[in-house]
């Protein structure tokens, strides 16, 4: 029986980054500060990560993918939104990371990977389609990122279940489906 959960150095460094982001903006965080927080010297950081952006991507991945053991896409999406709600302040700071290594791009890659896994589990074949699976997942990942960013950065406190329903509508019906539905309601 395991009395304690083993934590890797990589996770310790990611945790240290998380704690530092509670105290200061991501741009001001240095590798030394992450090392000090984790109780290691600077050089150790580079044994696990290329730079702090990679550490942030790993941290986000751990929060959104690592902690959720669920194959069903809908349930996984719901759990992801739940994480976003509980860690709202953290993700607010994350969305402030812009530029070449923006958080939006990181999140898009992670979500695209989740979607790709879902396609593999469902054994969806894109060979006869004009669109590749990579493009398909990228488009939908970017759409989810847009919705998430809007939700997190807005001051209104919508519950994650409302956002979940919005996403299911967008992903399930697409633009035409939603427009047709709205037209029916208007009539």
């Amino acid at each position, binding site marked *: 029986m395991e009395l304690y959960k083993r934590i890797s150095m990589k996770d310790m460094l990611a945790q240290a980054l998380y704690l530092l982001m509670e105290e200061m903006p991501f741009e001001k965080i*240095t*590798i*030394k500060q992450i090392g000090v927080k984790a109780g290691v*010297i*600077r*050089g*150790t*950081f*580079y*044994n696990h*990560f*290329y*730079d*702090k952006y990679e550490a942030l991507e790993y941290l986000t991945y751990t929060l959104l993918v690592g902690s959720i053991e669920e194959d069903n896409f809908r349930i996984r999406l719901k759990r992801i939104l739940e994480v976003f709600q509980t860690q709202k302040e953290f993700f607010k700071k994350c969305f402030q990371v812009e530029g070449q290594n923006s958080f939006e791009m990181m999140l898009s890659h992670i979500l695209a990977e989740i979607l790709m896994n879902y396609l593999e589990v469902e054994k969806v074949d894109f060979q006869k389609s004009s669109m590749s699976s990579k493009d398909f997942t990228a488009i939908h990942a970017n759409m989810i990122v847009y919705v998430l960013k809007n939700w997190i950065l807005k001051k209104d406190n919508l519950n994650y279940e409302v956002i979940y329903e919005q996403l299911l509508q967008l992903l399930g019906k697409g633009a035409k489906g939603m427009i047709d539905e709205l037209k029916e309601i208007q009539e």
Partner: protein
Amino acid sequence: MFRCILLLVAASSDSDIYMLEKGATTNQLKVKTFFTHSLIFAVVSVLMTFLGLMIGKLILNEKMVLLHEMITILIFLCISAIIFVRTFRKEKIIERLKPEMDLKTTLKQSILTGIDFLLIGVSLTGIGIAPIYILFAAFLLNLSSSLSASCIGYYLGADYQKAFGYLSALIYFVVANIELISLVL
């Protein structure tokens, strides 16, 4: 002698900034590698100082003492301004793993940063210190400061790059003013 050492410390700052960055972007403190690269900077600084001393001896003589002093002051003020502006404009480096250290790049960098030593060599001509001591001081100061900078970079990161630059600019400015005051008085 004190002025000489001060100037050599200031001239070493360019190589220090480079080695600081190298130290800050490596995952292991490779003493042999850092020592080799610091040695390159030290050797080139000695050669440049020697060249400067030779140039100074050729173009300046006893009758040109005043002109020599004025040129020295002007050079130091210019170097101070250039370093200050360069440091001010320098963007904060993104701390990213770059463990490879290319000898060719270091050699190129040492020649570029050695220009300060060349100018200092010219300005130190005829101050009464034997050239061998100046060259020895240049070698030792550059070697030790480059090695120290790489260790500082490794343990503390690249945050101190700007501090090195501003300190160097300040030293040049102070020495130039000391020379100016002694010239006037």
